[in-house]
C-alpha cells in the first residue's frame, strides 16, 4: 500500500528502489508540478522526459521495499528500508537491509560517493573504481546505476522516435544519447514512456559499442496522488548474463518524510 503526500520531488533510491525505475525518470529534478495526461501532439523527446522527471521528483521519502533476485532456479529475497532526500542538485540516501541474512547491511549515497557498511566489518568501505560495476548484493542492478543522480536531461540528448503500443498502453519511444563530454554509465538508452501517465514502462541500456546491456520493465504502476503515477514494481535484467533477473517492488512509500538530522551521514553510518 502506498501512501503519498503533498508534493512531487526528485526520487532517488540508491541503486534499488525507484532509482532504477527507468533510470532517467527517477533521477531528475524539476518543478514540483503534478502532470496530468493531456494533448502532447508536437512535443519532443526532452519535453516528454521533463514530464517524466517531474512526475517522479521526491524532495524526501521513506520507502519499504524488497528485491527478489532470480538466478535460474534459485530465488533470494532482500528486504530494505530506504530514506532519501534531495534539493534538486544533491541527492543523499540511505538503504538498510532488514531481511535476516543481510540485517544491518547499509548503503549510503552522499551525492557522488557511495559507502557501504557490513555489520561484521569494522570499517566503512567507500565503493569506487571497478567495484561500482558489480551487481549490488548479487542483483542485476549495479552500484554504478546508483551513482547517476544528475538530471538525465543534462546528461543526454533525447529524440522522440515514435509512438507505439506496449502492453495495451500508448507509449512514446524515446532515444537518449549521451551529450558530448558527459560522463554517463550508459552511452545510449531507449525509453518507452506511458503517453498518458508519464511513467517509463520499459528501458533498454546500451554499451557504447551498441550492445544492449540491461533491460528494465515496469510491471506495476500506482497512482500515488491524483494524476501522479508511480512505478512500484519493475524487473531488471542484465542481458549479458543468462537466466537472471531482479524484481524490485516498493511496498510502502512515504513522501515528504521528515528525515532525522545527520541520519544521512558517514558518522551516522559508523
Amino acid at each position: 500500500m502506498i501512501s503519498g503526500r503533498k508534493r512531487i520531488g526528485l526520487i532517488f533510491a540508491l541503486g534499488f528502489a525507484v532509482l532504477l525505475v527507468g533510470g532517467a525518470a527517477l533521477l531528475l529534478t524539476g518543478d514540483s508540478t503534478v502532470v496530468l495526461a493531456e494533448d502532447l501532439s508536437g512535443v519532443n523527446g526532452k519535453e516528454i522526459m521533463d514530464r517524466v522527471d517531474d512526475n517522479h521528483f521526491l524532495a524526501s521519502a521513506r520507502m519499504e521495499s524488497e528485491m527478489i533476485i532470480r538466478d535460474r532456479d534459485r530465488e533470494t529475497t532482500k528486504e530494505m528500508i530506504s530514506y532519501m532526500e534531495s534539493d534538486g542538485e544533491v541527492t543523499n540516501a540511505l538503504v538498510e537491509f532488514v531481511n535476516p541474512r543481510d540485517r544491518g547491511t547499509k548503503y549510503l549515497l552522499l551525492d557522488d560517493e557511495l559507502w557501504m557498511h557490513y555489520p561484521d566489518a569494522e570499517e566503512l568501505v567507500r565503493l569506487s573504481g571497478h567495484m561500482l560495476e558489480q551487481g549490488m548484493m548479487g542483483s542485476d542492478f549495479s552500484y554504478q546505476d546508483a551513482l547517476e543522480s544528475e538530471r538525465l536531461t543534462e546528461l543526454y540528448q533525447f529524440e522522440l522516435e515514435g509512438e507505439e503500443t506496449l502492453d495495451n498502453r500508448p507509449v512514446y519511444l524515446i532515444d537518449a544519447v549521451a551529450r558530448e563530454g558527459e560522463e554517463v554509465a550508459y552511452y545510449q538508452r531507449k525509453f518507452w514512456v506511458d503517453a498518458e501517465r508519464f511513467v517509463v514502462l520499459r528501458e533498454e541500456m546500451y554499451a557504447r559499442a551498441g550492445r544492449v546491456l540491461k533491460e528494465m520493465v515496469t510491471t506495476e504502476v500506482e497512482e500515488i496522488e491524483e494524476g501522479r503515477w508511480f512505478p512500484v514494481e519493475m524487473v531488471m535484467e542484465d542481458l549479458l548474463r543468462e537466466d537472471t533477473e531482479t524484481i524490485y517492488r516498493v511496498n510502502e512509500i512515504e513522501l515528504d518524510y521528515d528525515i532525522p538530522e545527520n541520519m544521512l551521514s558517514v558518522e551516522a553510518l559508523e
Partner: protein
Amino acid sequence: MYLLRIAFRNLFRRWKRTLLIAGMLMLAVLVFLFMESFMMGIFDLSFNNIIDFETPHITVGRAEYFAEVEDDRERALEETFIPENDLLEEIRGLEGFTALTPVLDFSADFVAGRYDYPVLVRSVEPETFPEVFKNQDYLVAGEFVEPGDEGVVIGSQLARFFDLEAGDFYTLRFQDKQGSFNTLQGEVRGIVTVPHPEMNMNTVFVSREQAAAALGLEDESVSQLMIRMADRDQARERAQSLGGQLAGSGFEVRSYRDTSDFLTALEVFGYVEIYFILVLFLLVGSIGIISALVLAALERVEEIGMMKALGLKRSQIVRVFLVEAAGIGLLGGAAGVILGLIGVGFLTTLGINLDLIMDPEALGLPLAGRLYGSWNLSSFVVMFVFVVILAVVSSVIPAYWAASKNPVDAIHHR
C-alpha cells in the same frame, strides 16, 4: 700439542654427552641450511614467476597511474600515454636491455553464462609481448592473441570456473575513458596455465588495438612499458638510473621488486623466521656446551688440581677446555654441513611438490607445482665457522671457572 691431546681425549671421555651437544649444533646448521635453501627457492621462483608472467624486470608508467593502482582504485585510463621516441630510445639504451613491450591494463568483468567475475585485462602487442613475457609458452588449448584479434586468452582456472573451452563465446564489460559501459566480445582464443595461480584466475589477454578503441583511447595508448633485462640482478640498479633520467617527467620507473612489495615484505619475514629458529637451536646448543663443560669441570676437579700442581698455568687449563668446546663445535658444524649438503642437494635436484606441504596461493605466493631449492655455498662456510666460534665463546666462562680452582682444595675436594 700436549694440551691438544688432552683436549681431544677429554672430548671422548663422555662421548654420549659430546655427541648429544654436537648433534644439537648439527641440527641447527642442518635446519638453517635446508630452510634457507627452501626459502631462497620459494622467493627465487616467486620473483621469476612475477617477472615472466606479471611485471618484468622494469616497468615504466605515469606516477599517478601507479598511485591509483596502489590505492586499489581504478586503473586510471586518463593516466595512459603514448610513448614518445625519446623515451623509447632512452629505455633501449639501458645497459643490459633485452626487450620492450607496451601493455594497456584495465579492469573489467568477464561475463559468460550466468556469471560474471572481475578480471584484469592485459591488452598486449602480440608481436613484442613474447619477447618480454612467457605466458604464451604455457598455452594448454588454442592459440595466443594475434594483432587485431577479437579473441581473448584466459587462464585455466577462469576457464574451469566458467566451464569454457577454446572457441566458446565471452563478453568483457568495462567502463571506457568517459565512464560509459562498453563491451568486448568474441571467442576464447586460447587457455593458459602458468605457474602463477592468481594469473590463471584473474588475468585475461586481448589485442591492444581492439582494447584501445573500445576504451575510447588512441590506438597507441599504453598504461605501462614493460622491459626485460639480461638478468634480474641488474634490474634495480637500472630502474634507479632510468628513474633518475626521467625525474620530473611525470613518469615513474619500477623494478620487479617495487611492483611486488608484498612478496618483498614476505621475503624479509621469511628470513626473520628462519633466523629466529636458528637462534633457538643455537641457544639450546650453547646451553648444552656450557653445561657439558661445567659437568666436565666438576668431574675433573682432582685432575685440574693435579695439572696445576704439575705446573700448568691457568691459561693452559683454560685452553684445554676451549679446545674441547671447539671440538664439539667442529663435530656439530661438520656433521651439519655434510648433512646440509646432502639435504640441499636433494632439494635442488629432486624438489618438493608444493601441494603436499602448503597452499602457496593462500599465502599470496605466485607459485605452483614443484619447488626446487637454491644453493648458497657461502652459508655453509659461514654456518660452520659460526658454530665453532659459538662453541668456543660459550665455553669461556665455564673454562675460567674450572681453571680458577685452588690446586690443594681441588685435590682434596672430597
